[in-house]
């Protein structure tokens, strides 16, 4: 019959198929059988991780600052949730937990099949009971006690403690960190995260396919994290935070009072009118020039363009013109200024912008312009088209443009922003208290912040520890460096009776006039013509030879150039202080005395017989730790900045805009640096640490917030012992002198902090300090000053145990605002809580 060959062919094919199967079976069952045994073993063993409780954080007296509490959580074991039941389960859980079912379902879908999802925390006992009783309705769902971070004292020491959250990409690369863990994100929680986390435990079970437990194979207990003992004293910390808060409020009240006063004097309308006129005049002049140029070139001038330009010029920005007197600046419900507010408005809606005069902002549309979004917004009738990052309507800056909304910050750049404080023990570098206000409650992070909470707190930088991250110009507090330099190096000012000097041509000791608003350069009114008598030139003058010789601290130091132009540096006190020696100059905070020291260093920088060291002052400053991080055991510390010629040149080359674009480092820059202005930057901690080194005899400590690490049984596993960064060779007489003079700043007749400490109470004589008021003139905006107020205090002055550093950003004067805040803290430290008196503004003295 036909087909036998075909049948044979079919048979062959089938034989090959079977042979193939046989070969594969051989491979699996004989050759690779070991691998499969391992796989099977894995199937059978299920590992459940048991979380380790996070270590606790205590203050130096054993008070709990951060701990762990048990919270009942709803955990879904995805391995037990069958696909066809998942939706049903999600619905039931949604109803029970009051969460949207779609969210729960999404979490189910995106989860690994072996994952354990935490759906809710902080269940009440009743809820937990219900779930357990009805467990058939909720297969795969269990109630498990979860350790949760707890901060019993809310905002106390929040920046030092930090907060916890989900790990970032970088965190996940650390050994032992999983996506489901929490890690410290800031503060001590972050710095000591590895110690605080402990080690997870695990329980191994033998299971069958339905995940029923057959046998418990073994358990490895979790190891709780270590506890930290901080150097922080809760009592001092509480007082510091309260005082900082009161201080910031005081500063804002003072600011509002100043504005009200200024408004009474200034006629706002006149000012605006004059500004408009000036702008239009300028535009007309420009138009004329254009016409002239066009006529010269033989073209017809375009008249319409000109008149439009002139009209537009008349539309000035009120906010720019009026500055801090502008009535549209944001205020709170008590009609006190607010540094920044976050405002959101949806498409088609309007919102009110707070201010002495309220304005209405309306978002008309959001346009998509390729990759960019443009918001069309109307503020009180004026239309703007803005993109991300733009500023408009005087006070507004775009934070984000969403599809249906616009988010802006409504800011007042003259309103006091924050108050920062540090209390350090100068005998070992322990930090007794550290805070910045506005602050936050770390508990909020435990469950996760909402987007708006995050944004509001972020807008005011509540999370940042400005004590180590804020870099400010130290102002007059920095005079102590030159003071020490003077005594140790015997460098004193030239003897100058009139406070004027002559400069030859080709050499200018000071900056060219009004370049980028770098320094205060002010030609005094009414003194356009130089006086007839020529003051002596520098070559003819003799330097003072001792710290007790008097120098005439007049109100200003004028530089005259051979071409007849002149430049004036003004003391903070208009009319000067009169004759003072080094000690008096520190007590009264005379600028001239210290400028003169700078000038001597500058003029003799190349003089082999003289000082012969351009960076002498910088070297002294750096010895006290300025310009470098202190190495404190907290994250994100900033190094500050001590400028010199090299740095200056680098900045010019980089074109950062922080320094003038042409011309080298000159004596005027050093003058600014010496009084802590210009480009000098320090953090409050650095200042505290530097002062500590001066008053304790020359030991520069490495500050610390953690003193001991203790395990769960109370045994000390590690000590963070005090450590030094260096020793400064100071003459005991210098140390004695500085202590005495600082004491006189507070207690003496010419001391700038005298009025602030007037009602201190007993033992005021044991208190010393130094004020500082830094004038900030922003390089980009040619606007009025917003001063940073400083005060560094110490007690007891003979052998100090406390150094208290306070800075109020945009606070006004050091003596007026910062000193009273420090005064409260010192009252607490020296006399006790009952002696703390309410804040009152001190004299506006630097």
């Amino acid at each position, binding site marked *: 019959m036909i087909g036998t060959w075909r049948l044979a062919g*079919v048979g062959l094919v089938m034989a090959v198929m079977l042979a193939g199967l046989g070969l594969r079976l051989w491979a699996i069952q004989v050759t690779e059988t070991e691998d499969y045994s391992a796989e099977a073993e894995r199937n059978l063993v299920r590992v459940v991780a048991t979380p380790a409780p996070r270590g606790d954080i205590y203050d130096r007296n054993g008070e709990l600052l951060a701990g762990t509490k048990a919270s009942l959580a709803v955990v879904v074991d995805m391995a037990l949730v069958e696909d066809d039941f998942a939706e049903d389960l999600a619905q039931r859980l949604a109803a029970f937990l009051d969460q949207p079912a779609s969210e729960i379902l999404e979490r189910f879908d995106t989860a690994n099949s072996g994952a354990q999802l935490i759906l809710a925390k902080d269940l009440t006992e009743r809820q937990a009971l219900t779930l357990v009783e009805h467990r058939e309705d909720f297969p795969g769902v269990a109630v498990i006690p979860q350790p949760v971070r707890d901060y019993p004292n809310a905002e106390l020491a929040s920046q030092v403690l930090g907060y916890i959250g989900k790990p970032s990409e970088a965190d996940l690369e650390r050994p032992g960190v999983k996506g489901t863990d929490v890690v410290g994100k800031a503060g001590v929680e972050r710095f000591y995260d590895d110690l605080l986390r402990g080690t997870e435990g695990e329980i191994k079970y033998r299971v069958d396919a339905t995940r029923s437990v057959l046998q418990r194979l073994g358990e490895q207990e979790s190891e709780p994290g270590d506890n930290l003992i901080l150097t922080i004293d809760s009592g001092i910390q509480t007082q510091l935070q309260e005082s900082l808060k009161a201080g910031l409020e005081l500063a804002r009240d003072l600011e509002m009072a100043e504005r009200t006063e200024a408004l009474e004097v200034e006629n706002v309308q006149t000012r605006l009118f004059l500004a408009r006129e000036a702008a239009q005049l300028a535009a007309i002049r420009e138009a004329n020039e254009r016409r002239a140029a066009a006529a010269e070139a033989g073209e017809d001038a375009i008249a319409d363009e000109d008149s439009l330009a002139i009209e537009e010029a008349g539309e000035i920005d009120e906010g720019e013109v009026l500055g801090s007197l502008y009535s549209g600046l944001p205020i709170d419900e008590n009609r006190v200024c607010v540094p920044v507010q976050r405002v959101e408005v949806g498409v088609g809606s309007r919102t009110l912008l707070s201010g002495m005069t309220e304005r209405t902002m309306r978002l008309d549309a959001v346009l998509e312009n390729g990759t960019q979004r443009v918001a069309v917004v109307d503020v009180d009738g004026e239309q703007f088209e803005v993109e991300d990052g733009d500023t408009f309507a005087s006070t507004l800056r775009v934070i984000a443009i969403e599809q249906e909304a616009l988010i802006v910050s409504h800011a007042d750049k003259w309103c006091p922003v924050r108050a920062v404080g540090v209390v350090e023990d100068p005998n070992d570098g322990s930090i007794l208290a550290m805070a910045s206000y506005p602050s936050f409650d770390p508990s909020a992070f435990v469950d996760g912040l909402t987007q708006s909470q995050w944004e509001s707190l972020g807008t005011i930088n509540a999370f940042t520890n400005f004590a180590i991250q804020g870099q400010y110009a130290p102002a007059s507090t920095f005079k102590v460096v030159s003071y020490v330099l003077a005594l140790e190096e015997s460098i004193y000012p030239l003897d100058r009776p009139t406070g004027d000097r002559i400069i030859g041509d080709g050499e200018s000791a000071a900056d060219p006039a009004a370049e980028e608003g770098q320094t205060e350069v002010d030609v005094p009114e009414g003194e356009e013509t130089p006086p007839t008598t020529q003051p002596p030139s520098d070559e003819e003058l003799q330097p003072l030879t001792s710290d007790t010789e008097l120098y005439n601290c007049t109100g200003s130091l004028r530089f005259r150039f051979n071409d007849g132009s002149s430049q004036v540096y003004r003391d903070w006190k208009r009319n000067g202080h009169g004759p003072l020696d080094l000690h008096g100059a520190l007590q009264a905070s005379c600028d001239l005395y210290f400028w003169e020291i700078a000038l001597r260093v500058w003029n003799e920088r190349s003089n082999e017989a003289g000082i012969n060291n351009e960076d002498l002052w910088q070297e002294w400053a750096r010895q006290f730790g300025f310009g470098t991080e202190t190495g404190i055991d907290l994250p994100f510390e900033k190094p500050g900045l001590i400028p010199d010629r090299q740095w200056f040149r680098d900045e010019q080359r980089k074109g950062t805009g922080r320094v003038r674009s042409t011309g080298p480092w000159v004596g005027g820059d050093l003058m600014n640096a010496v009084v802590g202005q210009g480009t000098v930057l320090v953090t409050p901690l650095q200042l505290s640490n530097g002062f500590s080194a001066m008053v304790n005899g020359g030991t520069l400590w490495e500050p610390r917030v953690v003193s001991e690490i203790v395990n769960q049984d109370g045994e000390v596993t590690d000590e963070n012992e005090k450590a030094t960064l260096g020793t400064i060779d100071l003459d005991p007489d210098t140390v004695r002198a500085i202590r005495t003079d600082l004491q006189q700043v507070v207690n003496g007749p010419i001391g700038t902090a005298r009025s602030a400490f007037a009602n201190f109470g007993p033992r005021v004589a044991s208190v010393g300090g130094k004020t500082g008021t830094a004038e900030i003139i922003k390089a980009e905006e040619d606007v009025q000053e917003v001063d940073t107020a400083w005060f560094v205090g110490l007690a007891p002055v003979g052998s100090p145990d406390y150094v208290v550093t306070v800075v109020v950003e945009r606070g006004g004067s050091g003596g007026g605002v910062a000193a009273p805040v420090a005064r409260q803290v010192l009252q607490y430290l020296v006399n006790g809580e009952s002696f703390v008196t309410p804040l009152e503004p001190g004299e506006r003295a630097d």
Partner: protein
Amino acid sequence: MAYTEERTQMSLLRRERQLRPDLMLVIPYLLLSALGLVMIYTASAPRLEEAGLSPTQELEQQAAFVLVGFAAFAIVSVISLSVVRPWVPALYLGSVVTLILVLSPLGSAVKGAQRWIQLGPIRFQPSEIAKLAVILGLAMLLSAAARPMRWDRVARAVLIVAVPAVLIFLQPDLGTMLTFGFIAGVMIFVAGATWRQMAALLVAGLVATVAVFQAGVIKTYQITRLTAFLDETSDVLNTQYNQFQSQIAIGTGGVFGKGLFNGTQTNLRFVPEQSSDFIFTAVGEQLGFAGSFFVLVMFGLIIWRVLVAAANARDRFGQLAAAGVAALVAFHVFVNIGMTIRVMPVTGLPLPFMSSGGTVFVVMSVALGMAHSVWMRRSPLVGERTGGDS
């Protein structure tokens, strides 16, 4: 001579009634069935016992079907196929009708597939019976084919297969549909299709497959099932859970297996569907390579004997029917065992004679019986001289 003629006539009848069974076919059949029962017991007993039921419940159920199957095999073996032949069209049409009924509300769905019909206490799968109907129908159509085969016959053959195949596909039952394709291909080839016709069939098959995928008719899960086994890295626990567990189970069997009831995968229920589609896993794990090899050899013997029966068939109808049976058994074996060791995708085809399931066993027994019948009536009958055609 008259005496010799008479004798010849007489003996022809007697010869026809003389049974010449093929022990090499029957014994593997019996052995595999027995082994299947044992495996079903080891796979089901622990589970049943835990659930508080009788551990032999499934065994007993399948044993009943096995006995029915044995009886069917014996009866069909004895019946000559030519007796059956006139009934083939009716059988075919009836089969198509039941396939349509399955898709209608009368059909019952089990595990998301519309495959069963419940008639009182009896539940059966029309698609299984359709396999027989199509084999017989094709055999009948192709047995009249001329040489060389004409294209219109090829087309008709395709039609005969296509109608039930599509109906089955709509259940949906992808695996069974592919079985039909394979059987048809083999039978058309054996019937004498030219290479060009075979090529055309192949191309048509591929085009149809592609069209079906593109038309999105195949549900995604079916595609994922098909492709998942190729992808080592995709989420093992979801799509390929069964296969993965099965392969592990078989792998851990080693050379001689872990012994009955010692299969941790099997007995700890890691391999779902173990009694039915994944019965081979039980063999591999408990009896090792020795057991797997034994099963392969047994199937090899059966298929070989069926092909030999086809080669020696008395008429083309018988030859083609036997070829169809060989293809039926071979395809099931290859796809099912292949599935358990991740050489083939999961298609839901049972292992003949071993997987649990009543309709399947009986139908397979009948099919084997048909092949056996062809053998027993093979040419030459006792005393007959061969006609010299081949």
